[in-house]
């Protein structure tokens, strides 16, 4: 027997209409209108993207059309949970705000937060906060998965960092996907809005505890002279899939710096569009990921230099083993008014096995003449000479490979502390867990 909510990840119109009727907490006309526009946009774009769409060429999510998913409607379903031991990020001090299947779970979250910080569930904020409504992109302007998210608007969190202290505010946002009732995996549509003034740090952990699809959207606003440091760690169960569509807007002399670490989950797509909207805005993106045995990790970046003297750096590194696939699509777009801008991008893939796949598509669109813009991409294997050197010093083949993988990732791991001194250690530990859990598939020499 199926319940009326049982559906594929692609909702039928009836199931959406029923959700819109039943969702008592979000009945304002603004929300209702936004949802309708979201669904209209999603339909207009032809529904779930297929590989025929250029930006989805290497990441096929059409399987989600066939799979049965249940929208998550229940609230407050978890009273406690066991934090997966491989994720050491929570050892970094700071208040924690937990979303269970997209819904804010106050019973799992910190209540005490410092001056200058406001954290609210999205549905609560939508009732009172008029400014928030302009912080969301119009459904007409977003791609299909973000439009689908808009059709379900209501889940999620709003984090406002205020500028009235010089202190670095660190906030943890934890997204847990877990299936507590029913046999169908769940699909969630959280929306996270961050408005950063001053010196702000958001540590975002995605934890898969059971089969689920998270179709997340985030809007990151970096106000003038502010710094937003954003760490996104994706770990856990490979039956949990995540599609994140993020939009970051950086105002004058603002800095958005982000480190994305993916050591778990099944299919992951991190789509990030950054707009360096005003003069001297800056963005630094770092990514480290592992992909193996049917895991798929896609980082798709669009870096828009819209204003003069804006700077961007992107460095992504992937370690890919048998059956894994890594995708990197990076576009740097320098608009005519963005003179004196400087954009740089690099992606390197380390292929551990002949069955590993890496796809990299850099694109530079330069419409100003006084700019610097470069990109680089490589894919290679572990160096046999170096492996022999390490074994000739007594390291067994697996230890030697692990050391070389650590070395490969070192410039994004050791080099990136982002003002969080414990971050490199935590990152190394998460990578070690991945290394230890992967089955050796290589014959010794």
């Amino acid at each position, binding site marked *: 027997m199926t319940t009326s909510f049982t559906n594929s990840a692609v909702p039928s119109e009836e199931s959406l209409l029923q959700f819109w009727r039943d969702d008592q907490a979000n009945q304002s006309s603004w929300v209702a209108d936004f949802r309708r526009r979201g669904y209209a946009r999603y339909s207009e774009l032809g529904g779930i993207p297929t590989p025929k769409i250029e930006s989805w060429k290497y990441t096929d999510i059409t399987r989600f059309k066939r799979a049965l998913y249940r929208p998550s409607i229940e609230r407050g379903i978890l009273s406690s949970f066991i934090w997966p031991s491989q994720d050491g990020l929570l050892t970094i001090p700071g208040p924690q705000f937990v979303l269970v299947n997209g819904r804010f779970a106050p019973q799992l979250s910190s209540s005490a937060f410092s001056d200058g910080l406001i954290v609210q569930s999205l549905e609560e904020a939508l009732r009172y906060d008029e400014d928030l409504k302009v912080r969301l992109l119009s459904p007409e302007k977003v791609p299909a998965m973000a439009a689908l998210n808009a059709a379900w608007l209501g889940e999620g969190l709003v984090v406002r960092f205020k500028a009235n202290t010089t202190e670095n505010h660190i906030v943890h946002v934890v997204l847990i996907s877990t299936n507590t009732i029913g046999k169908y995996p769940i699909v969630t549509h959280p929306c996270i809005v961050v408005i950063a003034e001053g010196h702000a740090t958001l540590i975002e952990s995605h934890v898969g505890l059971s089969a689920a699809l998270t179709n997340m959207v985030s809007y990151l606003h970096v106000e003038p002279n502010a710094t937003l440091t954003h760490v996104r760690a994706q770990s856990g169960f490979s039956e949990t899939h995540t599609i994140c569509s993020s939009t970051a807007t950086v105002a004058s002399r603002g800095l958005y710096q982000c480190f994305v670490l993916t050591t778990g989950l099944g299919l992951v797509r991190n789509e990030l569009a950054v707009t360096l909207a005003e003069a001297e805005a800056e963005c630094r993106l770092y990514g480290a990921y592992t992909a193996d045995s049917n895991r798929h990790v896609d980082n798709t970046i669009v870096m828009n230099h819209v204003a003069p003297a804006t700077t961007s750096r992107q460095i992504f590194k992937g370690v890919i083993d048998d059956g894994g696939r890594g995708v990197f699509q990076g576009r740097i777009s320098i608009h005519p008014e963005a003179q004196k801008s400087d954009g740089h991008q690099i992606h390197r893939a380390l292929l551990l096995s002949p069955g590993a796949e890496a796809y990299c598509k850099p694109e530079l669109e330069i419409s100003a003449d006084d700019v610097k813009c470069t990109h680089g991409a490589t894919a290679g294997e572990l160096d046999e000479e170096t492996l022999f*050197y390490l074994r000739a010093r007594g390291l067994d083949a697996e230890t030697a490979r692990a050391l070389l993988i650590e070395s490969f990732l070192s410039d994004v791991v050791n080099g990136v502390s982002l003002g969080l001194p414990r971050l490199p250690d935590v990152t190394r530990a998460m990578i070690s867990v991945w290394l230890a859990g992967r089955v050796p598939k290589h014959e010794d020499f």
Partner: protein
Amino acid sequence: MTCIEIRDLHACIDGRPILKGVTLSLSVGEVHAIMGPNGAGKSTLSHLIAGRPGYEVTSGTIRYDGRDLLAMTPEERACTGIFLAFQYPVEIPGVSTATFLKTAVNAQRRFRGKTEIDAMQFSKLIKEKAEKLGMNNDMLRRSLNVGFSGGEKKRNEILQMAMLEPRFAMLDETDSGLDIDSLKIVASGVNALRSAERAFLVITHYQRLLEYIVPDYVHVLAEGRIVCSGNKELALELEAGGYAPFTTHACHAS
């Protein structure tokens, strides 16, 4: 006491014969030098002993402390005391010399059933040994060999040898690319390790290194065979007359 015994060793790379019947025996307490022209097979011999993949031994044996060396993996060889100082040491970004060496020391200790070395003790030991080779703390903290000069890389090889205390150490053209000061430092590092418990095989093109590391025996390897063996005087003779007489004729110096 015989440390390593090579008998009639024939080996190919990609089907091309490189070693064509090498017979050589070293006892602990001895330093042997191997000299010979380019392409004679000197480096091949040392890499083959260390366990480098890609060589095919077509006949012959190598016994190491009574064991069949050719049946051992590279790491087993290292853990039982075989050490090769590389002619071209590799660079490993993001892994410091100290971290790398600690990993190696502990890998070898575990193999021998010992507990891991205490971090404080390790740090003290490595500083002490590095200082003798003119390497400062900064070099130990930097990524392994990244941005090191040729001389610094070779010193680093000797530091590793000093930390790992091998039973049989091979130096593959350690003198190449060294200025005279570095050469002296490297040689004194090697001499400090000479002991009745340890054997050395020093591979070099030039007699110069052997002025500082004085060998007990000198062998000439040419065309894949040891064509001549003698004492340290042989090296002087080679310096004066070149290798040509040895590649065509039988040896008369010993």
